[in-house]
């Protein structure tokens, strides 16, 4: 499990730290961390529905914010618990500016209270102390989710 929930950051909300050897791994780990706050037994989520996200942002950390927010959106709009399967991030130079684009394939199913052990609902992704950092051996992120 390439993420951990933090004991001493936030009280009413939940903070996690996630990591990966590259950005793609980090995004997948962060997505699973967010879903794991809502469903404790991630392995019980059957991967029978697919949603593809196409997102862009000129800030890389805000791209992660948008990606997590998209998972929260599908949780309410379609009751889908989605786990990221593949993430591709590209740098695009458009005229003078740099835009990051993301394509993510996520799979999952509708929340089933009988099979999915619920923990708590994620209301939103906050930007408080939000961090995305390159480290010596990859990437790491710290995120506080509003509960």
């Amino acid at each position, binding site marked *: 499990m390439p993420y951990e929930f*933090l004991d001493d950051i*936030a009280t009413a909300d939940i903070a996690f730290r996630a990591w990966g050897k590259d950005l793609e791994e980090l995004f997948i780990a962060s997505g699973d961390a967010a879903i794991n706050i809502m469903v404790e037994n991630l392995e019980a989520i059957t991967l029978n529905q697919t949603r593809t996200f196409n997102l862009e942002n000129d800030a890389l950390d805000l791209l992660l914010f948008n990606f997590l927010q998209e998972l929260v*959106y599908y949780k309410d709009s379609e009751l889908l618990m989605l786990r990221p399967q593949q993430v591709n991030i590209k740098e695009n130079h458009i005229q003078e500016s740099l835009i990051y684009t993301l394509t993510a394939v996520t799979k999952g199913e509708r929340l089933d209270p009988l099979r999915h052990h*619920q*923990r708590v609902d994620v209301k*939103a992704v906050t930007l408080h102390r939000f961090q995305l950092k390159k480290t010596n051996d990859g990437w790491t992120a710290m995120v506080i989710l*509003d509960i």
Partner: protein
Amino acid sequence: MVPVDVLKKISDVVWEIPVSYKAGMRVPARIYGTEKLIQELDDAVYDQVTNVATLPGITKYALCMPDGHFGYGFPIGGVAAMDVEQGGVISPGGIGFDINCGMRLVTTNLTYDEVKPQIKQLVDKLYERVPAGVGSTGFVKLSRNEFRNVVEQGAQWCVRNGYGWEADLELMEEQGCLEGADAAKISDKAIDRGVHQIGTLGSGNHYLEIQVAKPENIFDREVAQALGINIPNQVVVMFHCGSRGFGHQVATDYLQIFLKVMESKYGIKILDRELACAPFNSPEGQAYFSAMKCGINMSFVNRQVILHRIREVFSQVFKRSAEDLGMHMVYDVAHNTAKLEQHVIDGNKRSLLVHRKGATRAFAPGMADVPERYQTIGQPVIIGGSMETGSYLLVGVPSGEQTFFSTAHGSGRTMSRTKARKTWRGETLQKEMQSRGIYVRSTSYTGLAEEASGAYKDVDRVIEAAEMAGISKRVVRLTPIGNIKG
């Protein structure tokens, strides 16, 4: 932790951090609480409340109520009044993602002895009829266009559609509908998230509770009577919820809009991105204000439909009509809002946008917007404690002027959810609570463990501090006997 010599003691329950503490502070920060509560405070609160003190237009003080704790942007318990004629800003981080998260209290004319034999049946039926937990959906079926009308019309739509009584409306802030709510300022995503969620409790610290007003817990008999608490061991129902995914998405959308324009267009620099803001009198500020009002209205609608379900359940269980059971609303308070209010500052009347994030408006007797029937006693304030301990009904007082008539909203957490889930087990807690006479149902044992009273401050001390500071007055302490945890 703020060094002790930086924290200036103003009184036994008011502590000040001067503007010299941090570059950019426009006003001092003031934290409410006894010395013990201050010692227990999360370190992050000091940083967060002093960040708030740097926002444009902030007037007098950046405030934190006695239940204050670690938030995002503002601390929870944060209050900040922005002078809109002096470039004052509006910030989603000063309101919270759960726009108009709030509390509602309803009386019955039943006593504990009458309800006790039915408590399991009541809680089980309420658990069935008021969906709770992750991504739950309600029974009100609406098209997306109809939902856009509902968020503009607020609780008035509910009463017109049979989900409430006409008399309920005057017992809500703004009569359950904030004027100027404009659904054209709402994204399709927000509509998608909220359209199926009317009448649902949500999760986290949201709950629905059956409580008893024991005679020994009545602090002011006369005011309690005026609020409808007038039978020994009277049973009441209290619940806590907000605007669900709809409000969460509205705040998320505008947080991003403000981040884009804040510095480039308005030259505002902030110390935390979660404090993203725009001048109140700007196109972006006004758009968010109109959108946020839809969030406020959605929350009134949500609580109104839940009230309707509660009345149905009691009526079914006791085989009497809700009217006959005296199921009158006491009041509905919002504790995550920004509202344009008139306040007298240093002798001058000013138009202030008062942000209250995890803080409750507590208007004094005689103030406009206090319902006519409460004009002599002040605005009721409903405080939810932890599910194991108790909750409070308070009223606003004239000396509340010092906090722009704001007080606490709950007991305030002291321990993180992550730590609490390692400390307690939901199944054990449920059994222990049952042996103490509290029947609790939850969609999540982990969620239940995270709400253990040990993770919270002592609500009695918090409310005492609020009274000592003169920001609200105790009327009744309410004891839980049945609880639904989201």
